[in-house]
């Protein structure tokens, strides 16, 4: 008797586990059992596991019977004629999906000619072991698996032509690459996934060499000429959204050009782009602080009745303005209604992003890097035929990472560009590299893909021959324009009077506990004090009771709320955080008495 578990729960027993599993599988192939079910017979424990729950990773394989693939010539012909499709093959039991458990009971052949009577399944294609994005890496079988992972992760962050209807969409925080191209060196997955309908990169000329030290540590050098001609240009879209909310008491937000009497009115200049309806006009170039949607809201607290009557007069300004450090051009204005029936205004702002130092680029092999320098075209190295690379990539990125596919793509790209054809670089099923090299020779280039280059500054010939080729490069969504941050003065927190935190709030960079220790270790006592001056305050202290006194600005006189006027009151400098702590102690009923004395 064999125990049977369905979805991990004991359900019953069968006479012979192996026979039961075999029968159930053939029933599944015949279509009498759902193809979502997977069966696994564990010989050691003599148990059968049936799984049909969700969340199992499964992959398709061709069923093999008696050492013969069940995919017939006839089916292949029908497939070619488009008479049948994938789902028909699954229905006919030619292809079945296996989960990790059922795979334990199988023997899978990689290729047709390897089949023996013991085999139970045949791989459709070696590429099926990879996921969609990993299959987009050309010549992936020449790489370490970690690099394939990195390569596919990078591709997911690439800017591209993400949707053909982008001009009608109101996407939040999206990028669009201009002049996107389909890769010269492609894989079968590019075809399957209609990559040419939504490409995400550009074919460019890459030279592998150092350049004045500006491409150390994975940095890359860009050719300013290429940038001027449109390399890596992208558009960044960000919407501004405003809604006319309704409040208790029939009060409502109003989209309009705010009246000057409104509480919190900004400078008149900030409203200059607004049309009469309070919304900005398209194609106006806006920068930090400019109002995009003018809006006023009713006052926040409506407790007393007198205020209620004055409500209209004391409305609050609640316009949507450009954030700190952002700029762009108003692209599209949409006025609509939301689910609650409130007036909803969405404005899309577009900002052209030309590659600059610090922008991130990557090839498809996990070789990401940041722009270290943009070189004038005339200073770029050039070949005798006048070719100047678009990107100079550091050779030090290659040996430790062993991304051979990166080098092969350069060769393949060069052949493809010269011969005017696409190169198939499908992992495990690519065009032969030796053939590519031979073709390169026939096209008039060196077999090892190197070229003699000349120094762009002096015109001298480089002693070493430089590896130059074409490859597909992508711009990643991490751009300095979205990350750059600095602060000298700025907003502070209400409670502690310390600077705010984070780029969005224009915050400071914290000098933390361990950083503080470095100052102490150096004995830089006064520098340390100065660093922590961000929340310093001057507090009048009563020398009699040691509590914080009061300074009356009108009378220009200090007095102690406990001891009165006739006491010595001294102004003491301390951090506001400490003053806050003293106040908190007071609220706890702890009397913290400050004893003053001269330090020196």
């Amino acid at each position, binding site marked *: 008797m064999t125990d049977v578990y369905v979805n991990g729960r004991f359900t019953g027993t069968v006479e012979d586990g192996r026979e039961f599993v075999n029968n159930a599988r053939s029933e599944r192939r015949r279509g009498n059992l759902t193809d979502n079910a997977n069966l696994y017979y564990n010989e050691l424990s003599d148990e059968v596991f049936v799984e049909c729950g969700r969340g199992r990773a499964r992959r398709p394989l061709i069923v093999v019977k008696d050492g013969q693939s069940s995919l017939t010539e006839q089916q292949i012909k029908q497939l070619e004629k488009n008479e049948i499709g994938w789902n028909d093959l699954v229905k006919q039991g030619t292809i079945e999906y296996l989960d990790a458990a059922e795979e334990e009971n199988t023997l899978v052949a990689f290729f047709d000619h390897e089949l023996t009577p013991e085999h139970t399944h045949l791989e459709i294609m070696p590429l099926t072991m990879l996921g969609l994005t990993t299959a987009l890496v050309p010549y992936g079988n020449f790489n370490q698996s970690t690099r394939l992972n990195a390569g596919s992760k990078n591709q997911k962050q690439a800017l591209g032509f993400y949707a053909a209807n982008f001009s009608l969409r109101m996407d939040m925080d999206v990028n669009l690459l201009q002049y996107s191209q389909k890769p010269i060196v492609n894989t079968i997955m590019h075809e399957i996934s209609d990559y040419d309908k939504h490409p995400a990169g550009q074919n460019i000329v890459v030279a592998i060499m150092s350049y004045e030290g500006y491409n150390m540590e994975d940095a890359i050098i860009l050719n300013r000429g290429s940038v001027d001609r449109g390399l890596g240009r992208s558009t960044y879209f960000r919407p501004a959204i405003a809604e006319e909310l309704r409040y208790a008491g029939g009060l409502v937000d109003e989209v309009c050009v705010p009246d000057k009497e409104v509480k919190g009115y900004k400078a008149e200049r900030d409203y200059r782009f607004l049309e009469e309806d309070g919304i900005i006009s398209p194609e106006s170039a806006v920068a930090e602080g400019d109002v995009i949607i003018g809006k006023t809201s009713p006052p926040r607290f409506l407790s007393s009745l007198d205020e209620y009557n004055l409500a209209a007069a004391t409305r609050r300004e609640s316009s949507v303005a450009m954030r700190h450090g952002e700029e762009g051009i108003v692209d599209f204005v949409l006025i609509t209604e939301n689910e609650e029936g409130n007036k909803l205004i969405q404005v899309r702002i577009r900002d052209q992003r030309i590659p600059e130092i610090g922008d991130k680029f990557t090839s498809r092999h996990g070789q990401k890097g940041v722009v270290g320098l943009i070189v004038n075209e005339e200073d770029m190295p050039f070949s005798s035929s006048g070719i100047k690379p678009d990107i100079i990539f550091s050779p030090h990125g290659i040996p430790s990472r062993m991304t051979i596919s990166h080098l092969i793509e350069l060769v393949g790209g060069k052949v493809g560009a010269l011969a005017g054809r696409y190169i198939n670089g499908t992992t495990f099923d690519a065009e032969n590299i030796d053939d590519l090299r031979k073709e390169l020779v026939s096209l008039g280039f060196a077999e090892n893909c190197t070229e003699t280059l000349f120094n762009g500054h002096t015109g001298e010939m480089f002693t070493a021959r430089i590896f130059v080729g074409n490859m597909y490069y992508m711009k990643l969504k991490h751009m300095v324009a979205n990350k750059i941050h600095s602060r000298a003065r700025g907003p502070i927190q209400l409670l502690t009077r310390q600077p705010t935190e984070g780029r969005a709030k224009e915050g400071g960079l914290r000098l933390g506990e361990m950083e*503080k*220790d470095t100052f*102490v*270790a*150096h*004995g*830089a*006592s*006064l520098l*340390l*004090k100065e660093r*922590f*001056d961000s*929340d*310093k305050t001057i507090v009048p202290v009563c020398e009699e009771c040691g509590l914080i006194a009061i300074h009356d600005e009108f009378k220009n006189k200090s007095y102690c709320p406990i001891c009165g006027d006739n006491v010595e009151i001294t102004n003491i*400098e*301390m*951090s506001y*955080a*400490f003053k806050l*702590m003293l106040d908190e*102690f007071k609220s706890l009923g*702890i*009397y913290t008495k400050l*004893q003053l004395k*001269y*330090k*020196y």
Partner: protein
Amino acid sequence: MLEALKPYKEKLPKKILAELDEKLEKISSQTRQKKIIEAVYEQYNNAKVEAGESVGLVSAESIGEPGTQMTLNTFHFAGVSEMNVTVGLPRIIEILDGRVNPKTPMMEIYLNKPFNKGEDIKKLALAIKETKLVDVTKEFQVNIVESVIEIVLDKEKMKELAITDNTVIKGLTKNLKGFAIKHKGNVIMLKYRGKEEAINEIYKAKEAIKTVFVKGIKGIKQVLPVKRGEEFIIVTAGSNFKDILELEEVDETRTVTNNIDEVGSVLGIEAARQTIINEVNKVIENQGLNVDSRHVMLVADTMCVAGELKGITRYGVVNEKASVLARASFETPIKHIINAALVGEVDYLTSVVENVMLNQPVPVGTGLPGLVTKIK
């Protein structure tokens, strides 16, 4: 002492003076002697830590930073299974916390002249090892009807450990109350003397007698004779410093334990200080790191100044801090503030943390010197 050295008697440490005295004797010229001494004095002054240097913080960082690179967990002792040593970060934490019971107490027992040759060392080692009743028995049987526990002794093991039936019985009589002990062949019978039907009691007793101490030294769980250089020593898991030192075979001048608290109570606080330094350095070396020994010495000093071992915890060294604010900024702030409020404690703002809190210059480095003149 040389004439030229006399003026430096108070200015240089004894060790340097002695070395100079010895080396300078070979130099006859008085002027050259003087020159050398002056140069040494200058070098000595240069090597001294300057006033206002925050040595404590530098020590903390110098030990703390390599600590981030240390491996966690224990390593197995080479050669013997089941004998492992706490090393790396957990051991450092254990030492600096001043724990009374380390996770893996160990001893290295050096032996006196005739015994360290290796003859009979196994016998000696086994004599030290703590033997419990369960180690020398084959089985325990409970006869409920007659309220008797039968202990079947393992004669072979007893022979190996040189234990006679009498020692076993002695151990049992000492530790067991309420049972009559009868001895027959290799079986010891324990008859319950109390009321009848006390099955629970009997079963409890059966478990309890398993750990009855028979022979050896308490706390020594494992012994391992090892050849160290020319002589043989015994490495033990488990530690009982006091009892081991009392054995005549043991060389009490070299025998060590890694249990710092034990060293402190047997040999005194200075020995405990040295043990802290040795143990921390052992870990640091073991991890292939490089920390100046003086940092460790400073930490050991602060742990031992009070005359008893104090860990670097809120109950130990930190509790001794003069400043309320400094204590509160470490752990359990509420406890410290409430206690300070109850007794009206005064904080004189003499160290670093308090002054950082108040945004005052910290009294180290450039913040240390003050003006003598009063400004009005």
